[in-house]
């Protein structure tokens, strides 16, 4: 019989603020242990939280982009439990009254994945296990701002879950709300998975904790679905529990059962008044809201006539999309710009992020214009491309300086053609006998004779005439 997989995701995204959620400590990653700490994030006696207004703005931006209903008033609550990485003995989060409810996002298939809510909360520190005798704690990450985005159990398999996560991450990055860095933990997720027979009630769900790559999320879901199916088919029952994914063994193992689950004793944090997001702030952020990647993609296809593939590549990264738009704004043909960006530009980045691109849209636009106007050939353009990458020189200047202007003088071309034909009588015979492929050979020879600068269209025409 057929099985249905039901998945709901809880994504934790770190907000890209300079300072922490409730104190002024820096959020910089990779500092020496406990360098970014103060009385507040170390929970020294008497210290009190003071909310970071910038974090609220970023959180609201995300909620607007995801179509949530942003609440005028929301409440910070304490989630109480003991753990060494949690300095206060409670985490400040939002519980009964989150700042955003509802919303969702649409997958390529047209399927709409609904959100339950988004809430703001602080991150915990990090336990460092230093051998068997003791553990150390680094509180640099403690109190950094997070939003938790909770989806409805609308996803029906690892593939959909993956697309949802990629789309969500792309949106948050485009908004500059989150840097999306999964290795550093800026974007991580817990997965709720259950299986059932279509038409029957939902199965018991299992929570998979903190999986930090798209690859592992897929693998963990696949494994867990298989485990649950086999369990039920073998007459067993799925137990509600939290499981950890072991990436090396490619299995999940039980972390704690429902019975062991904490009673977090949530209650409103008396140290923080209710968070009020007023209409003025909401209006401003709505006005400033940038075009989202999927809307941009649609526009590139419908208005610029780009193939969907091109539009997808260009809109995947906000820096690349901005570069593309600036280039065509300077008059470059969209398809030509797209080809250059998807080819030479992206290749030049290697592993560097597109934010590191020094090349200027004006350089690429001029390069494309030089080709279009017949000043240089596409080949010459590719040859000089690497000289443009540091952003310092315009292509026209390089072309002039290196004397690379294309020769369109038909007299010079005809002379070169005559020379080549005279020197290669064997090939001329072959061509005349019907081996038209030899035309490429003659073009190559002419171009060689003219230092690569001849206008290829004119060379073709002259050869055909001469060999005609």
């Amino acid at each position, binding site marked *: 019989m057929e099985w249905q997989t039901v998945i709901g995701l809880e994504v934790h995204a770190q907000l890209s603020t300079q300072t922490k959620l409730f104190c002024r400590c820096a959020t910089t990653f990779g500092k020496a242990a406990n360098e970014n700490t103060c009385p507040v994030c170390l929970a*020294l*006696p*008497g210290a009190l939280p003071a909310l970071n207004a910038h974090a609220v703005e970023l959180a609201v931006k995300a909620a607007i982009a995801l179509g949530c209903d942003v609440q005028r008033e929301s409440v910070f609550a304490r989630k109480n439990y003991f753990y060494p990485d949690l300095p206060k003995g*409670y985490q400040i989060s939002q519980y009964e009254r989150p700042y955003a409810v509802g919303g969702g996002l649409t997958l390529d298939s047209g399927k709409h994945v609904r959100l339950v809510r988004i809430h703001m909360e602080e991150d915990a520190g990090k336990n460092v296990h230093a051998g068997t005798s003791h553990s150390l704690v680094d509180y640099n990450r403690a109190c950094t701002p997070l939003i938790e985005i909770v989806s409805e159990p609308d996803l029906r398999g690892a593939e959909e879950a993956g697309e949802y996560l990629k789309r969500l991450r792309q949106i948050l990055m485009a908004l500059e709300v989150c840097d999306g860095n999964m290795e550093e933990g800026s974007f991580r997720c817990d997965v709720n998975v259950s299986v059932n027979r279509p038409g029957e009630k939902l199965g018991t769900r299992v929570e998979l904790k903190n999986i930090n790559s798209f690859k592992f999320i897929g693998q963990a879901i696949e494994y867990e679905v298989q485990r649950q199916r086999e369990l039920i088919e073998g007459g067993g029952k799925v137990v509600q529990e939290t499981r950890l994914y072991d990436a090396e063994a490619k299995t999940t193992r039980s972390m704690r059962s429902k019975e062991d689950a904490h009673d977090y004793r949530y*209650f409103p944090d*008396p*140290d923080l008044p209710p968070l009020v997001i007023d209409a003025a702030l909401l209006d401003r952020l709505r006005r400033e809201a940038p075009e989202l990647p999927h809307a941009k993609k649609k526009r590139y296809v419908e208005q610029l006539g780009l193939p969907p593939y091109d539009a997808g590549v260009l809109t995947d990264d906000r820096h690349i999309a901005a570069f593309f738009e600036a280039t065509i704004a300077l008059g470059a043909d969209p398809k030509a710009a797209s080809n250059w960006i998807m080819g030479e530009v992206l290749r030049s980045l290697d592993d560097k992020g597109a934010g590191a691109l020094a090349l200027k849209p004006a350089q690429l636009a001029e390069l494309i214009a030089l080709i279009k106007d017949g000043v240089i050939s596409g080949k010459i353009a590719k040859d000089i491309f690497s000289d443009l990458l540091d952003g310092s020189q315009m292509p026209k200047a390089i072309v002039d300086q290196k004397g690379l202007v294309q020769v369109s003088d038909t007299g010079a071309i005809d002379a070169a053609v005559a020379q080549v034909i005279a020197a290669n009588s064997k090939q001329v015979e072959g061509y005349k006998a019907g081996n038209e492929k030899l035309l490429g050979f003659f073009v190559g020879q002419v171009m060689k004779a003219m230092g690569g600068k001849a206008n290829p269209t004119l060379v073709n025409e002259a050869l055909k005439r001469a060999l005609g």
Partner: protein
Amino acid sequence: MSTIEQLRERFIAKKASATELAREAIARAKKHADLNAFITLDEVGALKAAAAVDAQRPEGPLAGVPVAVKDLFMQDGTRTTAGSKILGDHVAAYDATTVQKLRAAGAVIIGKLNMDEFAMGSSNENSAFGPVKNPWDQARTAGGSSGGSAAAVAARIVPGTLGTDTGGSIREPAAFSGIVGMKPTYGRVSRYGVIAFASSLDQVGPFATTVTDTAHLLAAIAGHDPKDSTSADRPVPAYARGLEDGVKGVRLGVPKEYFTDGIAPDVRRAVDAAIAVYQKLGATLVDVSLPHTEHAIAAYYLLCTAEASSNLARYDGVRYGLSKGREAGLAPMYDRTRSEGFGDEVKRRVLLGTYVLSAGYYDAYYLKAQKVRTLIVRDFQKAHEQCDALITPTVPFTAFALGEKTQDPLQMYLADVFTVSCNMAGLPGVSLPCGFDAKGLPIGLQLLGKAFDEHALLRIARAYERETSWHERTPPGVA
């Protein structure tokens, strides 16, 4: 000993240096060491601070004046214990906003005052450092939880101190010790750097021998603090000005629920006499009712314990303070640190608060108590529509004997019966001396004002003080 105003005067007129004033205060503290008012008498730090004041010659409202603070206030580099073994060796790594403000006003802090552990108690008998003795009768309590803050002023060691009041912890010891103690409106004074007991109820406030000195202290510490999100962003009036304006035409509300049979006859007589003084001074009396008063204690002990159970979770043996059983693992460390570090009353309240917030009980206890709190707020709003301030006894009885109530926590909790409502409503309250009982123990008169109307409260208190001389009496053996 002299008042804050007199000491400041001596300093400004260069009749005494801050160092001399600090030395005198330290000598008095040593002379009265048997009161156990101080947990830490910071002689070295105080003289260093006094030398700095002498070098800078500040002119602020507390210029050159020696003061002391409850051992709940973080003072950078100074031991800060909250009266608990769990923080017994803890040296503060930063300053409370109020500590900075005292210094900015020119004061010299000479030490940290004894208190009930984590401000939980009404007699100072819950201190890990032993009880404070009442200067009027050393067999009796000086009140709590700010017992040291009250005794140090009553014994004229320093003219002013700071304490905190969560359910009466300033007003009750002020009443028991025959001095003035004020709990400002919630949000009037920053709580940043003050160890939390119950965050929605805690408020910092001053003790002094006179109403005017109380006003000077309040003016020095009040005001908005961006580090405390619950502090109010509103201007601070010049509290010490206009205090002599009298009470002609002022309406004083007499809540019937505060004049019950449970009040000791001497207390009742003294408060009735005080009311008569106000009438004579031209105030009008209004009968008012605060119908939910009887539920205040029960609701208060649900809310304050719930918050405390969470606030005290940070004392876990990981980062600072007492740490026991590390070698045995995480759970044993938590167990042993907290079992050995907290005293009985703190444990009782943490357990009660944990229960109150637990799944399945939250609605019945925590939420219901919050609803009672809302009703109490409304009671006061209605009453204050009819009058400018309420007048009541501070405590139904005078200072009780040490050991008298320690076996019965519920009896101890009833010491707060007239003080907790004010915290639940977030309103300002002041206790001032209004007489002595047959045993020669001080009696406190309580005035409860409107939100952020401390100025009116001080003016009303001052009118009575000017007409009477209770505040001029000093305990036996105190000059």
